[in-house]
């Protein structure tokens, strides 16, 4: 299966291990993520001002490129990109007058017809089937106790949520298919503090402490998530002893498919935990 893919800037700069592991893991499933020939920074944050169409132009330009490359949908991996592209797309679909204004402004471009659908990789995996994923597992991640964490961008606002915004389960289902022992964390949909990490990091440190301790108290040895900003925050702002590794879901997939993963971008190194569980040894033996 081939599908057009929008990486976003973060996956090309500070979260390269997310892209690398995602491409490896999807290839192992026979899914080919084809990067768009031309794409633009989505703006990272969806503008909530109702008259601020200027900040919708970048996501719409990218959606036009999807349309012109013949795609009826585009898949993102970064949660910020997913949320921004999907909200901008929804705004265009629900407001033909706004779409008309933007198309008139983009006079050097063909019109956006408003037909493209924005997907997150997790949705694509659900469509592929968790039972099918289970069949591809070569190294069962049994005994690894992991708490899924969603944060905001996959679930809020409700209109663009990829799962039940109050009680999502897509990460849990994926993890179970890899053999992971899922630890339920009631704070899995809490906000990590997001961009406060730039100039009010004490907010993020407080939120990180709450989220991670809640998982630890319930027996989790690590957290799994999808968003590069949540990853940066939870990974960097854990201050107390006994820090938990923070995995991208794609990294655990790659491991379960017997593939090597580069953890050099991680501040809390997960290798010790993975050695302890015998997972890295199993992968070495396979090679």
């Amino acid at each position: 299966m081939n599908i057009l893919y929008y990486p976003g800037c973060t996956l090309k700069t500070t979260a390269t291990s997310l892209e690398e592991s995602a491409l490896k893991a999807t290839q192992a499933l026979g899914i080919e993520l084809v990067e768009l020939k031309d794409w633009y920074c989505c703006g990272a944050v969806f503008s909530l001002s109702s008259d601020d169409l200027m900040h919708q132009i970048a996501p719409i330009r990218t959606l036009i490129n999807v349309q012109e490359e013949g795609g009826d949908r585009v898949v993102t991996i970064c949660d910020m990109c997913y949320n921004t592209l999907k909200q901008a797309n929804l705004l265009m679909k629900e407001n033909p007058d706004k779409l008309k204004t933007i198309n008139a402004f983009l006079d050097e471009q063909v019109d956006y017809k408003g037909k493209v659908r924005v997907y997150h990789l997790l949705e694509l995996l659900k469509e592929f089937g968790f039972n099918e994923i289970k069949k591809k597992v070569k190294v069962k991640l049994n005994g690894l106790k992991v708490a899924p964490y969603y944060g905001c961008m996959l679930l809020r606002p409700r209109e663009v949520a990829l799962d039940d915004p109050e009680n999502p389960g897509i990460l849990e289902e994926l993890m179970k298919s890899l053999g992971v022992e899922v630890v339920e964390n009631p704070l899995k949909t809490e906000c990590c503090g997001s961009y406060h990490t730039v100039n009010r990091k004490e907010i993020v440190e407080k939120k990180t402490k709450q989220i991670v301790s809640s998982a630890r108290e319930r027996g989790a040895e690590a957290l799994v998530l999808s968003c590069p900003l949540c990853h940066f925050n939870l990974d960097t702002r854990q201050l107390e002893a006994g820090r938990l590794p923070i995995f991208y879901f794609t990294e655990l997939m790659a491991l379960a498919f017997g593939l090597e993963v580069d953890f050099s971008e991680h501040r809390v190194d997960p290798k010790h935990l993975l050695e302890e569980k015998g997972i890295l040894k199993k992968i070495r033996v396979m090679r």
Partner: protein
Amino acid sequence: MATKPEMAKIYIMGKEHQVPKELTIMGALEYAGYKYIRGAGCRAGFCGACSTIYRKKGEYKLYSDLACQTLVQDGMRLVQLPFVPAVKAKYDLGKLDVSKNTVLEYYPEIARCVTCNTCNKTCPQDLEVMEFIQAALKGDIEKSARLSFDCIQCGLCAVRCPADIKHYHVGQLVRRLYGKYMSKKSKNLEKRLKEMAHGKYDSEIDRLTRASKEELRQIYKSRDIEAAK
């Protein structure tokens, strides 16, 4: 007797002038009596010194171009822009810790790009300015350097940008990064630099600096040049 040239009425900073229609904006300004003390360099579209902003008769849009490359039109209203006082980052090229976010560190405003495409529409070189800013944002320094290679630093993009990006300075930084840290090193250049350091060409330079004007003219006339095709 030469035929009288066809004339155009133009407005330079609001003042009406009659100038021959075949003149460039640069020529027309001189015809009208203005003297360039800056804002004119090569007069051939390469140096980017002679940015001009103009409006055409009956239009509301502002256009920009190089004065030496643009012919006057009847009813044109224009002004010269000899300099753009844009902020320029200071860095020691030899000491940069190059990562995919180096450009963002020195020019964080590139993250404000809304892809309005105004820079592309403004560029007198028809460069893909927006694309080289976007490439820099993605950490693709090689692509950014390639796309900005023909930039002549006129600064018109920065004047029009709603996000206050200094595209031409960003282009200069990515090309310097590419040249210093990423491009293939030339062995011939290293060899030549060593020869120069060891004084191989000193006597020849001395000969030229001591030569009279007449001798220099002779040397220039008899120099090796590639035959015209």
